């Protein structure tokens, strides 16, 4: 198009011949370009496919190690089983104690909270009805009396014989 602007006097036939004269140069260039594009595409496709299969291979390997990990966890659980631990302990010459020594100490707040006695007190509180709670709230002296009675019982009075 630019040649038409610069040389407006050229006839149509001349212009066609000029364009055709570019063909031997343009065609090989186009062909090479097409080949290059094709090669690039093939190369990319090949690289993508290879990478894809590598990814697949790595995924398979990851799966393999995950399976192995699971199996090792199972092995750990089996080695920790009570039967196996006991067998090993006996093999090492361990056994039940022949004599026990009982030592008493004060429980920590956390231990006390976990103890059955504390749990029982919690259950007792949860089973108290609303009316009972109101009664307890109003009749504070009863609470005080109960507390004193419990304190006296635990400190000074002999424990009842559990064997009747």
């Amino acid at each position: 198009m630019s040649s038409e602007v610069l040389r407006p006097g050229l006839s149509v036939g001349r212009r066609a011949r000029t364009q055709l004269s570019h063909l031997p140069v343009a065609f090989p260039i186009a062909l090479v370009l097409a080949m290059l594009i094709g090669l690039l595409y093939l190369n990319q496709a090949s690289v993508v496919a290879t990478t894809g299969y590598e990814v697949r291979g790595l995924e398979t390997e990851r799966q393999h190690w995950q399976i192995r990990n699971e199996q090792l966890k199972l092995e750990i659980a089996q080695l920790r089983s009570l039967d196996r631990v006991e067998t090993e302990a006996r093999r090492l010459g361990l056994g039940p104690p022949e004599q026990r020594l009982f030592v008493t100490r004060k429980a920590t707040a956390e231990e006390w909270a976990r103890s059955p006695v504390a749990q029982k007190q919690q259950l007792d509180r949860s089973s108290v009805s609303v009316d009972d709670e109101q009664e307890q709230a109003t009749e504070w002296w009863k609470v005080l009396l109960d507390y004193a009675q419990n304190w006296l019982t635990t400190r000074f009075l002999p424990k009842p014989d559990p064997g009747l």
Partner: protein
Amino acid sequence: MHELHKQKWRLYALFAITVGCFAVLASRLVYIQIVQHDHFYALAQEEHWRSEEIPARRGTIMDSASNPLAISVSFDSLYANTLQIDDPDKLAEVLAPILEVPVSELEQKLSLKQAAPVLLKEHLPAEKADEIRKMRLWDIYLRPEYRREHPQGKLAAQLVGVVGRDGNGLSGLELKWDSDLAGKPGSLLAERDTGGEEIALSAAEYVAPVDGSNLVLTIDRTVQMIVERELDAAMQQHQAAAGTVLVMDPYTGAILAVASRPGFDPEAKDLFSAETVPLYSIPAVADAFEPGSIFKIITMAAALDAGAVTPETAFMNNGSFSYAGGVVRNAVWRAPGMETMTQTLQRSSNIGAAFAATTLGPERFYSYVQAFGIGAPTDIELPGESPGILRLPSSPDWHPFDLATNSFGQGVSVTPIQMVTAVSAVANGGLLMKPYVVKEVDGPTGRRVYHPTLMAQVIRPETAAKLTQMLVSVIETVEDGQVRGARVAGYHLAGKTGTAEVPTESGYASDRTIASFIGFGPVESPRFVIMVTIREPKDTPWGETVAAPVFRNIASQLLPYFGAAPSVPEEVQAMESRR
């Protein structure tokens, strides 16, 4: 002219044949491309696309300390694309020593000409799978598949339950909690190459599987092991037909151990055999039985709480008790004269129990029995729970004499879980706790924690305290110079024996009994309630000699395990120094 006409005719014939052939081909083409389009399109899609279900991992069942009792683990299984195998005999010879199967068996499998992959060996050990993987064999491939494993072996097998070959729960917790454990399988729809493999980085639709939730139980595996060992020993010693032991925390209702015999091995090859399948049920919740004398605990709790009797209330025991046209007698005939309610429990007197129940009256008696949960399921999260049998005065088949017989555990059926729940209420001061065995469900869909549930206050704390002291005396009273079978040196325990005859269609079998014991301790702050049931012991029929020693053996191990200090340490030390 004639020759020309003949040639034209030949040309026409050739043309007609050609056109005919094309017409046939065209019609065939139309038939294949249009009429059978959907069929061949589906075949092509199937060839080109691979649709595969990706199984979800089944949740783990763990004890209270998160030790796995049942866990799903992946193992490689070996498959073959037999259509593409040229020399099955040679391949069989290579694989047979690794798979440890006869060559002929492998040859047979590899010679099958089928489109679907042929399973050569299921769940290979890791080292064998690695060996095969390194061989890089064509048309042979490994596929990971889940297998249910039980790292603790037979421990709590009936409770945990069985999973079928299809991966669905068949019994126990595996069945009851199947919807939580199973998870949701995923799927993969992907393009595949000529070898049938997924084309890397191709278009694919992947839906990830949702793994199942894990269950954390209230079961303590140490308690469970102690219980199972003692039960096995008792079964062997007494050549019993069956046995069940149940251990509960009385303050929370948490089941600490549950064991039954005969049992099964979840790893055994005959797991799905006709002999093993009937053992799947959990007798502690499924088997209702006539409790016999252990039911006197409930009778006495009702009578004491209602104020009908006190521990010191005495009556004249002259060896029989007539009521509503029937006569009650003791299991062993005796006429001791005046007998208190405490002595009624110590001597396990049927007459005393009948006296207490009839003094209380049917309306109040059955009201208490129902309040203790007898005759109704406890709704524990286990399959096949039986409600037991309790006939009420409103029932058409109830007779007034039933009040007397029910008082000592005849004519009424209970499950071990009902009895343990009821006696827990005596141990904890009168509170009926809902029994439970799953304390936590944790998984991709969220976390649910189950807390102890208080159902009702069935008796007053004072009644529970009085009854506890009466039950302590049952264990600690020395009769005829004999120490009771359930006594543990140094600790105050409470309990009651039971010896129930087995009901038959024509009355009660004289040669078969159910020996039982239920008790708790230490009474100062009970850590456990234990129920022992031994069915049809061969050497001796009595609960005192069959079930009470099992209770003692279990309790003597649990007390130090729970860190329970002895009430009388000197007794323990004296006993140990005598060894």
